[in-house]
């Protein structure tokens, strides 16, 4: 550990870091713009200037950029020297020449990194007398708003979007002080990770468009630590509320999971929380099919009376919390508790559970995935099935370049230099899939095979690894690549609903575990708590078809739209008149519509619970605000039902923490659940953690339109968080960090004040806890599955997952619905040609008795005999993976007009960056 001196202060610093990092680690306030902990240095903004002295006698020194200067033993610097402070102020002053002076009305105001740095350097008075340069803004789609005049040209957006996230449609244009960051033409940003621009941009050039429509200042938002329920990755989020509306979602740093970034589903997909389709009151179905609204207590009493002495079964949900599912299981008994998976999914999830519990392979965190130096992906389009993992894979392929850089003594944070050195040399990423994936651009090999063949191919790799080279040369070669890797990773998952693929993936990982390198294995699973609920189901648990075949007298459905799991006949049979169905959920859906009683459930933003992500990590989310109307969190509905039905064990339980404790005791896998977050009794220096900022304004006025008497703040009896601004917001446990702010650092860059060191874990640790540990025994699976038999003129249906479209909840957000478009079929160019259709035409797809008209999307890479269907769309609800289909041109088809639901596109104004080419 080298020692350096900053203004005479002796600092022990980390080997290989730069001076900016060293300063931030030492808690010194050195302003910066272009540097980003996840993206390294390029030295463009020149804001992080210090003076470096040759030796003790050197009194003049020279200006250096902290972010571009590696620490060296004995080096001497000054942050406070006058030439350094003057220089830093001059940088801000010149950045301000063209900057609008509209902080009070700017969407970034109050959380603007530029604003913070301007104050920090002490710049106040403008000396420039010229006119400001102005730019035209671009329409970038429904998610991101563009305001180019605020740009300070730090290049962060371009570097994030292109270099980090692999986007191709946003970047720098023009030059000198006409620099422009935008698209070639106006249009929707293509990247599934575009939303991070909002947080990456240090000013308000890229802002959250849905948020602008219901804007509040950062300091006016009430936030709670939360977990995204968009998929099984479990990114940590910080949703913000005001006036009872969920306003926006920001990233919440978790060193091991999402780091600094979210996908767009996670950031923008919570609009449903504010939806008009939310259920407000309990209702009991009348003879005429309408619902009579009833109060909570009445509904509960009725439900209890229905259940009294009856055969009651429960259907849980892979999107509901562990606690809600656990309570349901206890309430109805394990032998009457269905996890709520579809018929095809259930055995898959059961085997994933078994695999994760028994495999010798390491189940990696996202951070660990970034460290892989050879990756094999089997069957997944990860960008759509576990988006944040795809972003990590984009970093993993860079390990080759870091290796080259290391040989040259070049530190990793020298970002541009490392990229120039490596050019397109990447660590191997091999993708074997039925169709093109969004990671094809960085893959070293893409192999297109139908699902059955993927499994077969993977088995050939297993054989090659076992020293029996197969006749498949490609498989042998991949085996070699994996064997020679230092840190190989196998990724597969359930998205093809194909057990053979998962099984063979595990077999590959297991064989690699016999090598010194070991192997990482990552399995993508469908929903936010798929694993949690799979852990709760046991052998006695019925499947959905079991329940369909012998319906119970009373059925309790918790947060599950069965239409997505059953076919219409099964649905009809299950919900038939003979069974009394009680369902709790958030949004109107087919299941609620067929139930005898409906109970309004709180959304994730209004309740607390734990989710178990794809790596077996349990993470806790907390209510951001109190549920409105008569909504209740599912766990509370269930607990109240248990009390009213005098349940033997549950009726003694009142509080959330007791539910967690009971669940932890009920089964070994959940032992650690209590450690997912501190319990209700936690106090930080005697105080609860405040959800509101110290500057939370207008609290007394917010309700004045309704009642001039300020209502009492709600009390939170269930969590260590308070609906209050009183309390400390500093270094609290990671799981209890609702937002980041630090004096002088109003923007999200204040995160560095919460990190133990730059890019490291938080001072409050890392939120969440792993429930499952790798075992030494090894997961042995018997590898057999039925192959799909092809027929002439038929295609095999392959599900195509979409970040925007496939997820049940997020599509109830206008902006996401606009991004999702309508149900589609994906065809290879050859098939399209044969049918005589092109992109945007319509076809009639017939499969298993269903016939649907779908829009055609044409792909570059598709396995033989396969066609894809957009998963999760209303039109495709009853199509099943692996079944056979026929296609015919839809003569009635009308090309869908682009429908603008959520966006504010006004005139199609082709943007020309000011001064486009310099002279013309």
């Amino acid at each position, binding site marked *: 550990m080298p020692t350096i001196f900053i203004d005479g202060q002796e600092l022990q610093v980390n080997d290989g870091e730069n001076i900016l990092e060293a300063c931030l680690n030492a808690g010194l306030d050195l302003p910066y713009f272009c540097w980003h902990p996840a993206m390294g240095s390029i030295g463009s903004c020149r804001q992080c200037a210090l003076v470096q002295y040759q030796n003790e006698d050197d009194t003049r020194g020279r200006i250096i950029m902290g972010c571009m200067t590696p620490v060296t033993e004995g080096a001497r610097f000054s942050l406070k020297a006058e030439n350094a402070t003057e220089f830093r102020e001059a940088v801000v002053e010149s950045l301000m020449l063209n900057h609008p002076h509209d902080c009070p009305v700017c969407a970034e105001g109050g959380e603007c990194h530029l604003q913070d740095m301007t104050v920090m350097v002490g710049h106040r008075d403008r000396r420039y007398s010229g006119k400001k340069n102005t730019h035209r803004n671009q329409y970038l789609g429904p998610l991101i708003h563009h305001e180019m005049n605020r740009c300070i040209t730090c290049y962060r957006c371009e570097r994030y979007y292109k270099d980090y996230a692999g986007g191709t449609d946003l*970047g720098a*244009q023009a*030059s000198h002080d006409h620099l422009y960051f935008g698209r*070639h*033409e106006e249009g929707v940003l293509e990247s599934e990770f575009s939303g991070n621009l909002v947080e990456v941009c240090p000013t308000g050039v890229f802002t959250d468009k849905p948020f602008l429509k219901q804007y509040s200042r950062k300091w006016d938002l009430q936030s709670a630590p939360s977990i995204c329920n968009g998929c099984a990755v479990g990114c940590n989020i910080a949703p913000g509320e005001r006036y009872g509306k969920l306003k926006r979602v920001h990233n919440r740093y978790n060193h091991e999971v999402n780091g600094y970034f979210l996908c767009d589903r996670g950031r923008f997909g919570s609009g449903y929380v504010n939806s008009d389709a939310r259920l407000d009151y309990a209702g009991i179905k009348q003879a005429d099919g309408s619902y009579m609204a009833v109060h909570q207590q009445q509904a509960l009493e009725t439900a209890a009376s229905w259940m009294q002495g009856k055969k009651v079964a429960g259907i849980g949900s892979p999107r509901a919390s562990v606690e809600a599912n656990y309570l349901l299981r206890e309430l109805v008994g394990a032998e009457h508790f269905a996890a709520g998976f579809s018929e095809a999914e259930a055995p898959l999830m059961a085997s994933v559970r078994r695999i994760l519990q028994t495999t010798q392979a390491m189940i990696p965190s996202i951070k660990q995935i970034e460290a892989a130096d050879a990756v094999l992906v089997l069957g997944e389009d990860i960008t759509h099935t576990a988006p944040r993992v795809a972003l990590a894979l984009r970093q993993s392929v860079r390990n080759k370049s870091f290796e080259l850089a290391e040989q040259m003594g070049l530190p990793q944070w020298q970002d541009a230099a490392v990229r120039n050195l490596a*050019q397109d040399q990447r660590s191997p990423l091999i993708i074997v899939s039925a169709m093109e994936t969004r990671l094809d651009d960085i893959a070293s090999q893409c192999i297109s095979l139908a699902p059955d063949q993927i499994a077969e191919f993977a088995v050939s790799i297993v054989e090659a690894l076992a020293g029996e080279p197969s006749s498949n040369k490609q498989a042998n070669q991949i085996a070699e690549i994996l064997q020679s890797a230092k840190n190989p990773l196998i990724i597969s998952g359930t998205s093809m609903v194909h057990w053979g693929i998962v099984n063979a993936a595990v077999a590959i990982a297991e064989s690699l575990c016999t090598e010194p390198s070991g192997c990482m294995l990552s399995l993508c699973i469908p929903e936010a708590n798929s694993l949690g609920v799979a852990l709760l189901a046991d052998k006695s648990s019925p499947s959905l078809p079991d329940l369909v075949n012998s319906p119970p007298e009373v059925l309790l459905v918790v947060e599950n739209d069965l239409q997505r799991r059953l076919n219409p006949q099964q649905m009809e049979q299950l919900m038939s008149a003979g069974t009394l169905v009680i369902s709790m959920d958030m949004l109107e859906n087919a299941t609620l519509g067929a139930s005898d009683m409906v109970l309004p459930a709180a959304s994730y933003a209004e309740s607390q619970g734990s989710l178990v992500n794809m790596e077996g990590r349990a993470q806790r989310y907390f209510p951001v605000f109190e549920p409105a109307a008569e909504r209740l969190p599912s766990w509370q509905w269930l607990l109240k039902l248990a009390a009213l039905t005098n349940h033997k064990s549950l009726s003694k339980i009142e509080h959330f923490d007791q539910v967690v404790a009971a669940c932890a005791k009920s089964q070994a896998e959940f032992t650690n659940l209590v450690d997912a977050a501190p319990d209700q009794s936690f106090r930080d220096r005697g105080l609860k953690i405040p959800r509101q900022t110290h500057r939370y304004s207008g609290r007394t006025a917010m309700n004045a339109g309704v009642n001039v008497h300020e209502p009492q703040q709600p009390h939170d009896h269930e969590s260590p968080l308070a609906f209050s601004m009183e309390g400390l917001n500093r270094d609290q446990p990671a799981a209890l960090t609702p937002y980041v702010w630090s004096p002088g650092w109003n923007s999200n860059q204040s995160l560095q004040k919460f990190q133990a060191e730059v890019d490291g874990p938080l001072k409050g640790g890392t939120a969440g806890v792993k429930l499952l540990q790798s075992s030494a025994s090894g997961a042995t699976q018997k590898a057999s599955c039925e192959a799909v038999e092809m027929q002439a003129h038929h295609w095999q249906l392959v599900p195509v997952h979409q970040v925007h479209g496939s997820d049940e909840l997020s599509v109830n957000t206008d902006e996401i619905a606009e991004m999702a478009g309508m149900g589609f079929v994906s065809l290879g160019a050859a098939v399209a040609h044969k049918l005589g259709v092109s992109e945007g035409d319509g076809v009639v797809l017939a499969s298993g008795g269903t016939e649907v008209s779908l829009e055609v999307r044409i792909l570059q890479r598709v396995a033989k005999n396969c066609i894809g269907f957009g998963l999760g769309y209303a039109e495709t609800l009853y199509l099943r993976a692996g079944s056979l289909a026929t296609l015919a041109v839809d003569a009635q088809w009308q090309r869908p007009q682009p429908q603008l639901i959520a966006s504010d596109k006004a005139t199609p104004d082709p943007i020309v960056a000011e001064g486009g080419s310099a002279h013309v």
Partner: protein
Amino acid sequence: MSKSEMIQTDIGSVLTAEEIAEIDAELAHVPYKSGAAIDALKIVQANRGWVSDQCLQGIARHLDMSAEELEGVATFYNLIYRRPVGEKVILFCDSVSCWINGCDDIKDKISQTLGIDYGETTSDNSYTLLPVPCLGACDRAPVMMVGDDLVTHIDHEMVQQLFASAEQGSAE
């Protein structure tokens, strides 16, 4: 590949066979296709005077680049024109030696004669006037290029002779 890119593919290439052949010749000696980006822009511009959006997209497709990436390159350089220009571009040197030797006055004379300012094109589409950094002929200042020709020691009379026949007035 994105949806918008796929739709574009259907239009077919906007580049001529000759242009493609010329670009391919450049591609032969670069390790990455994008390495020929500037050459390709210049090839197309030499043919058509400027680079339209369509051409830019066509080149990008041919080089496996995104249109945005190529736009970033095209707009960086002074000599790639992203808007139409006249038949001949006048690159008028306004740098230091020419300035000392009175180029401001000559520029006014040209503007007056042709009726155009910097960045404008005559209404008969024959000339576009652009400033250019030092042309490296300072010993013969003031200088300019008219199309491919270097014109040195410019004075009012030469301006008159060169441009008197051109139609006055700027075109959009």
